[in-house]
């Protein structure tokens, strides 16, 4: 395999197509796909392997061995054994957790006429290529071994021992657990994340790879190969932006566990309109409102979400209902049709009706909003939440004073009502770094950046003076206003050395708490710093000694 074109060029990627795709369903034009990928997608090589889905050993002959090989496999179905496939990938130097398998059978060939199937296959493969090119590699912590679902004679003879699924791992250098952040631990529906000392540990046996912790982390410190925000951003951007801008495209987030249901329906010819492009996630509960809105800013005509058809193990259904509810309320408030974001039914019979009924093209409003040139860099990163919203508001020409209160708003605005002593407890409790305590020579200031606030509410109970109010509101002025001072207080200085003691409000508060104590003690504490209190002349009362 050749190296990439140069520095900054996307890594070389091989797309391997199963030759059987030609004869499946309505078939597709494989040579057109090959030519188009060569011409349109940078750094891509295309190979075709006979019977790839049943004999994955063919990959070794099609792909030159090279460390860090990026691979996309175009498969006939999703019914393949990971335990059979993964060893072949490892032997050619590919990381199995970074290889993208595209079920072209279900998502292109089986349910669409040849022409449409070919077009869909091109776009889906381009999306998968972008996704694997954004893959940052996996670590040993990211693999969870599983016993094969079926242990039969063949698996024993071929030593198909174990299969592996990706699990999240914490990037310790980014994690704020040492500063009290517990967002991932609280978000995990399976209690699989535990705090151990200054680290978060994953109990792999409990983890179902739902991915909820990935988007709960305000610091992008949870690493889940295959479902990293940067990878999914790249995939969605490519799905929406690759190829001719002939008609609006829409994104359908699909729960991984529902993929077999879609495959079954596709075999019966039931599917969504051809301009709806699937993005599989481990659980739709991991998809935050910012991702749904982010798709719109990348040019999606609409966004759909398809939760588990079976009972959701992760409680993702409720989470995504809330997220969709918030997004739809926001779109309405911005003057848009709220059906640009849709939640599909989980009942299979209802799904059979709902899938083909998804709007093939948008209404007049959607057409006018439709954009094909994404200008926002990876919008799924946690730090991009506010920018996504501001971009959307800009597209809708929303008033800068626009504000929408919503009980489930993922954005919040913190206010300090009264009694703040600038103790900094709120800043210490804030996991996202939205609240901070800044010291300057003359004063101490509590500052707030609404763009970072996740409305988690940790600051409210942390305040000893009950001075914090959190409003769950999406407020454009606050989101675009940067960091602002919420409360500022002058520093009281030591009468002896001039060093700061605490803020004046804090000193007053302590004096009030010491009401009834000897005035000398109160005076000492209120007027001298900790160092000077201990070094004052012996005649000065020493309130902290045993003798006193």
């Amino acid at each position, binding site marked *: 395999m050749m190296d990439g074109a140069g520095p900054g060029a996307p890594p070389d990627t091989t797309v391997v197509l199963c030759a059987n795709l030609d004869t499946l369903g309505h078939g597709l034009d494989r040579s057109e796909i090959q030519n188009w990928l060569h011409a349109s997608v940078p750094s891509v090589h295309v190979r075709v392997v006979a019977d790839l889905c049943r004999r994955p050993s063919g990959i070794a002959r099609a792909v030159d061995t090279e460390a860090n090989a990026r691979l996309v496999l175009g498969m006939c179905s999703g019914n393949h054994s990971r335990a059979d496939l*993964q060893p072949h990938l490892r032997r050619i130097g590919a990381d199995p957790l970074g290889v993208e398998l595209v079920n072209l059978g279900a998502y292109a060939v089986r349910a669409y006429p040849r022409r449409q199937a070919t077009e869909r296959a091109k776009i889906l493969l381009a999306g998968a290529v972008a996704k694997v090119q954004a893959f940052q590699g996996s670590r*040993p912590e990211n693999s969870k071994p599983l016993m094969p679902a079926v242990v039969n004679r063949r698996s024993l003879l071929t030593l198909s021992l174990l299969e592996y699924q990706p699990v999240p791992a914490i990037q310790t250098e980014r994690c704020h657990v040492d500063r009290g952040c517990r967002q991932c631990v609280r978000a995990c529906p399976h209690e699989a994340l535990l705090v151990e000392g200054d680290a978060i540990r994953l109990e792999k046996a409990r983890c179902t790879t739902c991915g909820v912790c990935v988007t709960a982390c305000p610091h992008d410190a949870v690493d889940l190969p295959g479902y990293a925000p940067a990878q999914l951003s790249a995939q969605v951007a490519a799905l929406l932006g690759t190829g001719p801008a002939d008609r609006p495209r829409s994104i359908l987030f699909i729960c991984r566990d529902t993929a077999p249901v879609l495959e079954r329906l596709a075999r019966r010819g039931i599917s969504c309109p051809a301009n709806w492009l699937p993005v599989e996630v481990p659980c739709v509960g991991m998809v935050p409102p910012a991702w749904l809105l982010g798709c719109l800013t990348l040019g999606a005509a609409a966004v759909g979400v398809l939760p588990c058809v079976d009972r959701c193990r992760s409680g993702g259904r409720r989470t995504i209902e809330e997220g969709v509810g918030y997004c739809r309320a926001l779109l309405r408030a911005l003057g848009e049709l709220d059906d640009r974001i849709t939640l599909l039914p989980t009942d299979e019979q209802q799904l059979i009706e709902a899938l083909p009924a998804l709007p093939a093209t948008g209404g007049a409003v959607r057409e006018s909003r439709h954009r094909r040139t994404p200008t926002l860099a990876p919008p799924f990163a946690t730090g991009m939440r506010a920018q996504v919203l501001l971009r959307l508001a800009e597209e809708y020409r929303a008033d800068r004073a626009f504000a929408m209160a919503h009980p489930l708003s993922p954005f919040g605005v913190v206010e300090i009502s009264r009694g703040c002593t600038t103790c900094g407890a709120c800043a210490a409790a804030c996991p996202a770094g939205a609240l901070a305590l800044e010291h300057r020579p003359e004063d101490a200031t509590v500052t707030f950046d609404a763009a970072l606030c996740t409305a988690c509410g940790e600051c409210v109970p942390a305040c000893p003076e009950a001075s914090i109010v959190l409003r769950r509101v999406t407020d454009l002025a606050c989101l675009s206003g940067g960091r602002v001072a919420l409360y500022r207080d002058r520093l009281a200085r030591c009468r002896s050395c001039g060093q700061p003691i605490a803020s004046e409000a804090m000193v007053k508060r302590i004096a009030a708490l010491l009401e009834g104590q000897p005035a000398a003690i109160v005076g000492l504490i209120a007027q001298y710093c900790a160092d000077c209190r201990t070094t004052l002349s012996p005649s000065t009362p020493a309130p902290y000694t045993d003798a006193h």
Partner: protein
Amino acid sequence: VVRSGVVEIISRLAPLRHAAYRLFAALFLYPDDDRLAGVLETSGVLRRYDASTARLAFFPPWQRLLITMEHLSLDGAAKVREEHMRLFLVNPVVPPYESLYTPAQADGGGIVAARLTREYADSGLALAPSLAEPPDAVAVELEFMAFLTEQEARAWSHGSLDEAVQVLAHEQRFLVQHLDRWFPALARRVRTAAPEGFYATVAEATDAFVRHDRDLVDLVLMTVRMAESLDGRRTAGAAG
């Protein structure tokens, strides 16, 4: 069915795990000529099993290690010795002893070593005086895991499931309390101190292997226990 499948799988893996632990243990000892020759020979043999080891997630760093050893020249051997001295022996950049990776308040140096000595003694083992390594040296802990996996392999070959499960539980305890707890930190330090060196490859492969082994042992014990409780329920159901 589940139980027999799991037994078949894990019993096949035990000899490989034993060989890997022995190899890693030897790699962390001073690489004199004899030891290096032995290690190279072993790695050559293990390389023949690539088709099988590729089925396990630690294969990529494992393969990198075996290939590195395959290409080790005489000149390379001298460099390896030099690197070993610098990293682990003389005023070591990365001291390979568990006590130094344990929070001071919990240990103070001797407690870990004392616990390990007792642990080895309970298994009928004592440190050979010729080894000149303390009980918490990485090589000694890896060698102890090699011992346990050998016991396990023997139990499987005798068809003694209960004994094998007992040994597996011991392996799990040892990994949780010792190797898996501190080896990742040692591996990180080696990779930082000499990212391009031979021992970065060794540390990476050992780290991947130890983490995998912990996951594997957890998985097997969980599966066996689930199967046992299923069997128990079936028996109770049949009796009822």
